[in-house]
């Protein structure tokens, strides 16, 4: 039973505040992903949980016990480093056995455990090699193996697959998920890749500039982003965001002749000027004029094989829509766009979601 809890944690590097009043509970056996841009404090938060970094105020609890004054070596938390940190002078076997030797595990048991974990990670053939003779994917498996051998209270992984190529990343993602299901250890995983986060997480924690923006399941984060940052950080391509004028049953993009039709029950709750957020897949492009569709000019077409992303000019605004492959022939074409009101988001000037939905 290992629950990790952060209570109002603050951390400064000199005058710079890197973690700002972060409170979070990670439940036993949960897989939580920290998602955020480079430099937002993800690594620092993980290091604080592991005891490699002190915090300036606030409490960190592991399994209900405050650990601020517990040294890293006594916290029993495994850490997979962003840079792997495999010891170059030791073989893969010795690297993986290293944590076991710390607690004086009998030799025979070390051997059994290392070979079992190596088997799970499919690196049994590499045990005699040194890290310098391994590929990026192998290094990563060894780094994870070193964390897995000892059944820690919790696993912290700092962008473990960030440096791999796309295909390998996908494979490792699946493998990590499988390992977590098998081992069931409480895991905090750091990434700046939102697809990775969506694929792996039980819950996602979106961070920005040291502040937690939103905590929720991938679906929650995706369908109900609390602010513009989360809305635009999660989802690919990025959610369209435009200033709109709200009329009675109609929402008009700045400078556009016509507006998207929206239910009156919705528009009545909105002020005259708000920010509309709508994902590309919530916009439907048709070639012929039809009821509720407004005119738009095709600006650019990106063919992605399974689907196309079309850049459209509506009034002064540029929006992107997702269409089936080959629907729109090319730039300059006149098309018609419908917006799915049930998937429209509205934000105030500060970028906070108004929480007004159909």
């Amino acid at each position, binding site marked *: 039973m290992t629950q990790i809890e952060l209570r109002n944690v603050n951390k400064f590097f000199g005058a710079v505040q890197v973690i700002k009043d972060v409170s979070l509970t990670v439940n036993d056996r949960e897989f939580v992903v920290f998602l955020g841009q480079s430099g937002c404090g993800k690594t620092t938060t993980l*290091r604080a949980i*592991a*005891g*490699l970094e002190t915090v300036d105020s606030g409490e960190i609890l592991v399994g209900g016990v405050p650990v601020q004054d517990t*040294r*890293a*070596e*006594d*916290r*029993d*938390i*495994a*850490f997979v*480093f962003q*840079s792997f*940190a495999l*010891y*170059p*002078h030791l073989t893969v076997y010795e690297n993986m056995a*290293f*944590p076991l030797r*710390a*607690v004086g595990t009998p030799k025979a048991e070390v051997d059994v455990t290392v070979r079992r974990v190596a088997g799970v990670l499919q690196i049994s053939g590499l045990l005699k090699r040194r890290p*310098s003779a391994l590929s990026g994917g192998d290094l990563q498996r060894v780094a994870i193996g*070193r964390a897995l051998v*000892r059944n820690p209270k919790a696993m912290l992984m700092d962008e473990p697959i960030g440096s791999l190529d796309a295909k390998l990343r996908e494979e490792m993602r699946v493998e990590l998920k499988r390992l977590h299901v098998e081992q069931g250890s409480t895991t905090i995983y750091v990434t700046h890749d939102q697809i990775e986060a969506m694929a792996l997480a039980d819950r996602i924690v979106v961070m920005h500039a040291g502040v937690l923006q939103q905590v929720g399941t991938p679906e929650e984060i995706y369908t109900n982003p609390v602010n513009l940052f989360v809305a635009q950080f999660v989802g690919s391509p990025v959610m369209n965001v435009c200033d709109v004028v709200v009329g009675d049953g109609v929402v008009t993009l700045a400078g556009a002749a016509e507006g998207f039709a929206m239910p009156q029950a919705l528009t009545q709750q909105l002020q005259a000027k708000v920010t509309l957020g709508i994902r590309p897949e919530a916009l439907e492009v048709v070639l012929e004029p039809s009821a509720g569709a407004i005119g738009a000019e095709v600006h650019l077409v990106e063919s992605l094989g399974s689907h196309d992303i079309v850049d459209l000019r509506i009034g002064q605004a540029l929006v992107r829509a997702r269409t089936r492959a080959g629907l729109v022939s090319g730039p300059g074409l006149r098309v018609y766009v419908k917006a799915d009101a049930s998937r429209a988001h509205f934000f105030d000037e500060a970028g906070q979601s108004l929480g007004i939905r159909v």
Partner: protein
Amino acid sequence: MAAVRTKGEMLRHRLSIISLLVILALFLAPIFWITATAFKPRNLATTVPPTVFFQPEFSPFVKLMTKRSQLRSAPTAEVYNAAPWWEQTVFDGGEKVVRSGKGEVQLSGFPSRFLNSLIIAITSTVLAVGMGTITAYGFSRFKVAGEDDWLFFILSTRMLPPVVVAIPMFLMYRVVGLNDTHLGLIILYTAFNLSFSVWLMKGFIDEIPKEYEDAALVDGYTRMQAFFRIVLPEAATGIAATAVFCFITAWNEYAFALIMTNKRAQTAPPFIPSQVGSGLPDWTVIAAGTFLFLVPVAIFTFLLRNHLLRGMSFGAIRK
């Protein structure tokens, strides 16, 4: 790794090999000279032009190690044949080995001076490198108030040439009874090498990613264990390079050794030239002493050569 080369590069490659061979020959010439002289009979040591081909002899080494006197008359065949082979080589040179009343061979000063050199150089190297590594680790890994000032201060101890401080040191050493002792020279050389060792080791330890230790810490090792099990092996290259430099400095040191010691703790460097002054110099003996003096450094450097090569290019090649 064989990279693809153009013709121009091949030519340049050959030219650089040739020039390297020339430079090598230039540097090896004095060493060859000393080595050759150490094995020459005395009458061939100073011929002009120098003798290149000769029957190598062992007598200079025997003469180096023993006390000798001139033979007034050739030894009788009985005496000659009873003598061991090394003593015969001395007889051949017109000298005899001095023996005590009981017939024990009287050793010259060289063996004990050589031993002094070994004791003092090795001990001071171990101390300087050991203390330097720990100090450098502290400077590298922890926030030390006034770090840059401390490091500059440490380096500044190296700024005065030894001759300048030798006399005051001698006076102080005399007061505390450290002159002409092994301990005195060991302290002196350790202090002298320490600044160098700290600076060099700091560079090497800075290069070791902190995350190695972080990984060891989360794996359940204490910082001390992490230092011994991770930092030290990773710094082996740097330690080897630093040790070679410190050893060579201590081994070759002349000025302090000359002033601070005269008998008990005298090292080989001041002893060898002192032999030049006594009567007509026997250059083969001096060459033999110099040759033996070169050997430990050569062995030491040879043993550590792999580390050294990596150490020299450390930081230049990123892993």
